[in-house]
């Protein structure tokens, strides 16, 4: 399942890069992210809860940074597993930052996600909508945080 999208934030590229590569910022902006820790500069662990109608799942996820090209591009792989419930997710992600015309930053993301186990029995069509809405929420939260920082908050 491929998910792609982009959003603009008002902050310049350098600032956006710092925020988007800071696990604490990402953890705070990602809906359902219950905890996140940096194991090494290129490895993060997180607990992420997702809910789709009556179905809820909590994943222990690991994000490994494979390539980093500051401040424009980061390639990572996310592996998640649901404790004891035999559902796995794997996602290869590319995040690209570029200056926007208004001095802000255009953030583009692409993810190629596979889901196996019990959750795969549920339709991918709606799962994709859900992933897109999570991405939109993340963008909104990040934007709010950056704006807050820009206004000296």
């Amino acid at each position, binding site marked *: 399942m491929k998910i792609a999208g982009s959003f603009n934030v008002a902050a310049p590229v350098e600032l956006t890069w710092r925020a988007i590569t800071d696990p604490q910022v990402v953890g705070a902006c990602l809906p359902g992210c219950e905890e996140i820790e940096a194991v090494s500069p290129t490895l993060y662990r997180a607990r992420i809860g997702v809910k*789709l*109608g*009556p*179905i809820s799942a909590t994943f222990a996820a690991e994000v490994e940074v494979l390539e980093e090209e500051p401040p424009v591009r980061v390639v990572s792989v996310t592996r998640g597993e649901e404790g004891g*419930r035999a559902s796995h997710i794997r996602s290869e992600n590319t995040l690209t930052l570029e200056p926007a015309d208004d001095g802000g930053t255009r953030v583009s993301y692409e993810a190629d996600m596979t889901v196996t186990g*019990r*959750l795969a*029995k*549920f*339709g*991918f*069509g*709606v799962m*994709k*909508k*859900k992933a897109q809405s999570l991405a939109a929420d993340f963008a909104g939260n990040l934007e709010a945080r950056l704006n807050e920082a820009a206004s000296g908050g």
Partner: protein
Amino acid sequence: MEFIRPDSIDAAVAALQAENAACLAGGATLVAMMNADLVAPERLVSLRDVAALRTAMRQPDGSVVIGAMRRHRETAEETDLRDGQRVLSDAAGQIANPPVRNMGTIGGSCAFADPAADYPPALAAADARIALVGAEGRRTLPADAFFVDWYETALEPGELIESVILPPAPAGTAGSYTKLARVAGDFAIASVALVLGMEGDACSHLAVAVGACGPAPVRRRDVETELLGGGLGDSEIRRLTDALADGLDPVDDVRASADYRRRVAPRLVRQAIAEAKQCLSGTQ
């Protein structure tokens, strides 16, 4: 997991006041999801023995109150539904297949809120209200406000659906449900619920809800209102389908691509209106 079979609405509501409790209505969806290990409620509250949820009654004002535990088969055969209200029975008769229609209930279907289910657009077009009951008391919501997002409704934890209330449809209106599916009984690729009234050549009542093309049924009341009194010819229908198209947010899935759904939904609207007009002119 606990299993409770209360015999009254009050007892059911009381039993539902627990962490991770779920109502078991017909089981057609919930048990399938339990079998697939997608959900595992800690407490199941079976509504089977709650007789008050199993009735459907036509009120003096012509509205019809359908208990949450009415089976699809019962709703498909419901003689209390008249005129435009028939949109609901037409939809009920197209859900799945006979054994599933013997099990599934209107309350269960609404609570699960599958975006491709048949009841939500029919309820939206019928201007139905959903009656909820919880520990705090009762409230009713219009269908538009009840279906909130993908598989999400306005139901709060500890609340259950008591009934669905269809307001009276103006005399002489026709209600129909037009469903495009890969095979009979499958979930819809796209569907159109319609309540239409014509006085001569003038449109006197119009409600169109598109199903299976977004998280909730799509209606454009503003355009419907503008079209009242007019002829409902090709250009008017085009205005409506263009407006509806703006509100569609279909999924790509095994049944059809999002693009296909966008293309086919306006055609289904045209087909539904043409058929309803023909049906109305035949009865006048």
